[in-house]
């Protein structure tokens, strides 16, 4: 019996070696296909060292202006609406939080009432040092070296939700079920939906930047959202940062968010 077992282990070991061999063959096949065509950037695409956004709360005239940004984002990316049966499992890319929730730890009971109830737009911060990327076991979420966008590869995500535990900004949503029945508005047929079991979030409209367009929310914001290359002193976002006092969410964590907030004076509004 023991000899049989030894034989078995030999065969098992051999099979394992073959398996490794198979992986090499698969890699070789991939190489061959890759050789079939060069891939190029779209020359129309916008380029930056690191994309950043400045949210100037003073420039929003009304709640409707803010809602316009959210709707633009959610429409263009086929973000589903809240399932009334499961409100805690909602999906959102861009939404609002009051000051005490957007900047916890900085709250103050005597903060001017105007700011206390201001609906701050919040989204993925596209951190320079993103914890979500650090923890992802498959590189499904990764930071693009070319322009600093923290991306999601929905094809690769296994839905472990480690990134959701790691994100200090609550920017990530999980598809607890098939999102399609909950996309009530007209589908954007140029952009995919998601499938159940993957994590999603704002991607700074990488698909629009690649074609030379600004992010959807920026486009409809009437200048309240400034977007550009933070490494370029002449960019829109740098002009806002140079001329205003800005804050970021939870800077003490060392993640270096790329989204800045101008709290602004009431007189701006």
């Amino acid at each position, binding site marked *: 019996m023991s000899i049989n077992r030894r034989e078995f282990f030999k065969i098992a070991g051999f099979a394992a070696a073959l398996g490794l061999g198979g992986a090499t063959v698969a890699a070789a096949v991939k190489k061959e*296909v890759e050789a*079939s*065509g060069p*891939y190029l950037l779209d020359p129309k695409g916008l380029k930056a060292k690191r994309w950043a956004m400045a949210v100037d709360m003073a420039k929003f005239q009304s709640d409707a202006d803010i809602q316009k940004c959210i709707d633009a984002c959610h429409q263009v990316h086929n973000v589903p609406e809240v399932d009334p049966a499961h409100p805690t499992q909602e999906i959102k890319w861009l939404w609002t939080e009051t000051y005490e929730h957007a900047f916890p730890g900085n709250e103050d009971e005597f903060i001017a009432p105007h700011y206390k109830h201001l609906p701050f737009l919040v989204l993925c911060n596209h951190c320079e040092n993103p914890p979500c990327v650090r923890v992802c076991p498959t590189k499904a979420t990764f930071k693009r070296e070319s322009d600093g966008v923290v991306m999601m*590869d929905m*094809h690769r995500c296994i839905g472990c939700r480690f990134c959701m535990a790691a994100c200090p900004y609550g920017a990530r949503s999980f598809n607890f079920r098939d999102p399609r029945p909950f996309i009530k508005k007209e589908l954007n*047929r140029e952009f*995919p939906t998601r499938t159940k079991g993957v994590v999603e979030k704002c991607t700074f409209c*990488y698909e629009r930047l690649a074609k030379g367009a600004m992010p959807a929310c920026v486009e409809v914001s009437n200048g309240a959202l400034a977007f550009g290359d933070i490494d370029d002193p002449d960019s829109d976002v740098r002009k806002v940062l140079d001329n205003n006092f800005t804050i970021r969410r939870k800077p003490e964590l060392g993640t270096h968010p790329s989204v800045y907030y101008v709290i602004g004076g009431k007189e701006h509004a």
Partner: protein
Amino acid sequence: MYDSGKILAGLIIFIVIATLPFTLNLGKAVAKPSPSIDTPAINQMAKKQCVESKDYMKTTHMQMLNNWRDEVVREGNRLYVAADGKEYNMSLQNTCMNCHSNKSKFCDECHNYVAVKPYCWDCHIAPKEGV
């Protein structure tokens, strides 16, 4: 042989299960798939030419799509330079399906025949057909 009854019963159960794919399909004739390229966009083309040659697409479209998605999503490259030098926007939804707007007669025809279910359409939106 000890326990011959049990062994024989076990063998029979094994054989029945192992041959299930054959026995279940016995006598069922499945028509040979014939994917159609009869779509308005393709009919308008002077020369009916896909991104690459028909043979290449037939055998390699899955690896090609795999590479396309990695290039677009991970590298940010959007343009594919074909063997004939023509440039294409790498997009299943916006390039491939613009011409092949007949998913059920083009994609599904073969995929159903070989019983593969690519999960592309869980996310990517298939063109509206019969419009």
